[in-house]
Each structure stands twice: as C-alpha cells, then as structure tokens.
C-alpha cells in the first residue's frame, strides 16, 4: 500500500520533470534566426515588436520566476489595472462564494420539497430539464440588462450555474431515502420537521454533498469566463488583461493558480462529503 503510493508519487515527479524539460527545450530560441529587427528599433518599440510582433513563449523558469514575483507580493493595488494576483483571486473567490451560497440556500430547501412530493417532482421536471443545459454565460446579457451591475451579474451567473446540480441531487437524495428508515420514523411517531432533520437530511447528505461538489467545480469554471466578459476585477479579467498586454508569462502563472484554487475548492467539498458519508 505504502510502496504503491510511493511509486505513484515518484512517477508523478518523473512526468512533471519530463514535461518541464520538454517545455524548456521547446521554447529555446533558434540561434540561427538571430534578431528579426534592428536592435535600435527594438529598443524603441519594446520587446514584443523586437521579435517580429510575436511574444516569445516563456519557458518554465521564467514562469516560476514570475510566480515567485506574484506570490512575494500578492495583495498590492497600484491602480485599477494593476493589482496583486491575491486580490484578483480574492475577488473571484468572493463572487463564487456569494453566488454559490445563494444557490445552496435556494436549491437545498427547494430540492427537499421536490424530493418529498412526487407531484412537484413531476411538475417541475420539464422546467429543470430545459433550464439545466443552458450555458450560464447565455444569461449574462439578460443579467446585465436587468441588474445593471457587472459584478452582481457575474454573481447571478454563478448562482444560475451552480443551482442545478444541487437542486437535482438534493431532490434525488431525498426521494430515494430508504423506505425502512422512514418506516422507523413512522413507528416512532417522529414529527415531520424532526423526521426531515434527523432521518432524511443525514440519509440524503452524501448525495446532496456530491451535488454541491459538482456545483463548486462548475462555478469555478464559469467565473473565469464571466469575468473575462464583464471585466473590472477578478482572475478572469486578469487573464484577459494580460492577453491584451501580451504577457504570456502572467497568463500561464494565472492558469496555474486557477487550477490550484479549483483543486482546493474541490478537495474541501470532498472532505465535507466524506464527513457525512456513512457505510451501510
């Protein structure tokens, strides 16, 4: 068991090393090509134009240096377009948290009611089936038009994309609570509210948490795109802004951080799911 894990770790390190080497080798400047333009001209128009309008792809060492630079001072603010990565990520996480919590507050009680009532389950099913596959970004213009605030609109987009997995999983989890546990509650004359909190909720909790884990994943995917659209602040905006600056190094750094934050969010929910899972 322990040796298996050690082997897997060694293999992971090996794959990473191979990838970094290949990357470094792939971005080596071709020495034969030489400078595309006159050095004097390059000094005048900046590094980007110096290579013929193409930004050279950075190597892993440059990205690591840039990452270190960002991590050394993550929370600075030097004007609207120049803020630390920590601040940008903080904006994104705050928006995701707001939209996600709002969605949970709506979806879990509503899912409970739908799960307990076969009539409502069937009545609301067509609406859920139509609304669920809509790309959350398709709501953006409508949100901007009605809410008229870009930051609130992106929170709404997070809300609308994270509500469906939570709603569907809660309804399913509640509807499929084992009949014998409900019969136990009946023979013990347990009142409806107590039954909901002490039998149905713990029985459905693993399914509900699975829905919440799917939702947080989708929300983190969507926030980057939403912030690219609305601009202003956030990690998505940062990526787009660095694209406009042609700073590929910053973009790769941000991509890496987006992945890491997403992993942390997912693992946090996975940990919660494990805490409420019961072996049968």
């Amino acid at each position, binding site marked *: 068991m322990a040796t298996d894990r050690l082997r897997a770790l060694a293999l992971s390190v090996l794959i990473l090393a191979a990838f970094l080497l290949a990357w470094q080798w792939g971005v080596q400047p071709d020495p034969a090509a030489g400078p595309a333009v006159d050095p004097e001209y390059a000094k005048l128009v900046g590094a980007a134009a110096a290579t013929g309008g193409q930004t050279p792809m950075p190597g892993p060492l440059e990205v690591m240096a840039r990452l270190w630079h960002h991590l050394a001072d993550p929370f600075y603010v030097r004007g609207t377009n120049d803020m630390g990565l920590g601040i940008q990520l903080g904006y994104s996480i705050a928006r995701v948290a707001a939209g996600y919590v709002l969605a949970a507050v709506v979806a879990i009680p509503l899912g409970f009611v739908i799960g307990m009532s076969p009539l409502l389950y069937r009545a609301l099913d067509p609406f859920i089936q139509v609304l669920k596959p809509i790309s959350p970004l398709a709501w953006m213009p409508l949100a901007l038009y009605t809410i008229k605030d870009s930051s609130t609109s992106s929170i709404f987009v997070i809300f609308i994309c994270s509500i469906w997995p939570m709603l569907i999983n809660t309804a399913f989890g509640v509807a499929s609570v084992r009949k014998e546990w409900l019969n*136990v509650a009946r023979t013990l*004359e347990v009142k409806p509210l107590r039954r909901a909190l002490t039998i149905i909720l713990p029985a459905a909790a693993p399914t509900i948490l699975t829905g919440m884990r799917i939702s947080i994943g989708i929300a983190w995917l969507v926030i980057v795109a939403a912030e690219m659209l609305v601009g202003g602040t956030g990690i998505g905006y940062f990526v787009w802004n660095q694209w406009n600056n042609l700073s590929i190094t910053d973009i790769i750094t941000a991509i890496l951080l987006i992945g890491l934050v997403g992993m942390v969010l997912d693992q946090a929910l996975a940990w919660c799911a494990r805490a409420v899972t019961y*072996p049968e």
Partner: protein
Amino acid sequence: MAERYISLEGIGRRYPNPAGGGHTTIFEDLWLTLPKGTFTCIIGHSGCGKTTVLNILAGLDQSSEGVVVVDGTAIEGPSLDRAVIFQSHALLPWKTVIGNVAYAVRSKWPSWSRAAVLEHARRFIALVGLAGAEDKKPAHLSGGMKQRVGIARALSLQPKILLMDEPFSALDALTRGTLQDEVRKICQETGQTVLMITHDVDEAIYLADRIVLMTNGPGAVIAEVVENTLPVTRDRLDVHRHPAYYPLRNHIIDFLVTRSKAFEAERRALELAGTPWQARQPRLVRPGFSDPTLAITPATAAMSA
C-alpha cells in the same frame, strides 16, 4: 378469551387489480385476539398476507375494512405503543448503537434529560448483551449484533406489543438459536405481549404460546389457532424430546404441506359435520397423542409415497 388486550376485528386487505377492474383480496374477515403477556406466532406460506397483518397492526399499512383494537382503542396509524422489529433490522447507519436506541427513547419520552435517555438506552443495550459496543456504527457489527440492536431499540420503548416480522430469518443457524433463547427469556421476564411472523416451524414451537395457522392466499383465512402444549419452561436443545413435541410439529407441518392449500374442502366437510368453521372464532386446537392428524390419511400417505 377472557382478556382482549389486542384484537383484530374483521380486518381485510384488497388491492386494485393492476389490469383494472375489480380487486384482489389478500385476506378478509380476519379475527384474532392476543391476550396480554402472550407470545403469538403467525405461520403460513408466502403470499398469505401474514406480513400485511403485522404491518396493519403496526400502522404501516391500512386495512381495507375492519378495525384493530389495542387496549380498548381502535388504532389509527403507527404508535410508540406498538414497537416493530424489522426483518432487515432497519438501523440508521449514520448513528452509533446507542444513538439508534437513544433516538427511539427520545421519541417516546421527549421531555427526558439527555443523561436519562442515555441511561435508559444503555440498560436495554446491556439487556441484549451488547454492553461495550455502544459507540460502534452498525456497519461494524455482525448481522446478529445488528438485529440485537433492533431488538434493544424496540424493547426500550416498553411497548404494549412487540411486532416481529421474521426477525431471525436473515441470520445463520447458530446466531438464530442464541437470539431465540434471549428473546424468549426477555419476553418471559418482562411479560411482553408479542406477535411474530415466521415460516420456521421449530422457531414457532419454541417461542410461541399460540401458533396461528393461515391458509394460502389470495383470500387467506385463519384456519385455526394451535395452543402450544409444551411446558412453559422449555429448553431449545432438548425441546424435541418432549412427548408433546412431535404431535405439535406434525400437526403444523401437515397443515403447511396439505391443509393450507385445500382448506376450502375442509371447510365444507366441517359444515356437513355440523361444526362449521367460523371466521370470528377460529378453532383452538391442542395437538396431542390422540390427535387424528397423526393417523395415516390418504393425503399423508400420498405425501410419503
């Protein structure tokens, strides 16, 4: 019966036919009284509706007609007075052993303090021999131990009647025997009124004071009630050496093998003999040495051939 502590009065259960039109009658006009402090077993083939009878008594199912009277009151739905031991134990897997029992105790006595609830729960866990396993989750218990928790949970309610639906059928023979001993001991000591569903003849003979024989469904009836002629102090290991054991056992086996499916003919014969079968007053029989069912009848001869 002198004391009608619990009585089923003319209950019936019908299901609408899935194809539409008419009903299927599982059983109808069922009358049975359970005197206080007695252990009654219902025995019959699958599909005779014995589980339905138990569920109606538990309040988990509703009778299409008739009433169930418990201690002078017609029942409406489930009640803490009637505790159920489920075949599949039905423990809540996210709660510990004591959590499961305490949940029941708290349901019955909501005003009790936490300490009183735990103390009461612990007493009944010890009664079924699980002291020391209070903090285990059901997943970490064997099948027999899970069923013990189910029994402790039901007993902790100190119910008027204990309803058991084939509680030992999922257990291995050794565990089943031990649990039968303990259930019998506990029920005798506490004077618990019990109704148990089983299809194990030996289990019924060992545990029950009275064994109710149900004919095959649909349209099942209580053919007769067999009084257990064995002494009250009986030992599981040598109960089969008692002279009354085999007459009793043969009577029940004969019923299950032949009479349960041909009861209509028997009913007509009784009618002609002037001692008609009555739904309201099922015959009480005491199988003994002189029991006519011990004689070789054409039916039993055909069976052994």
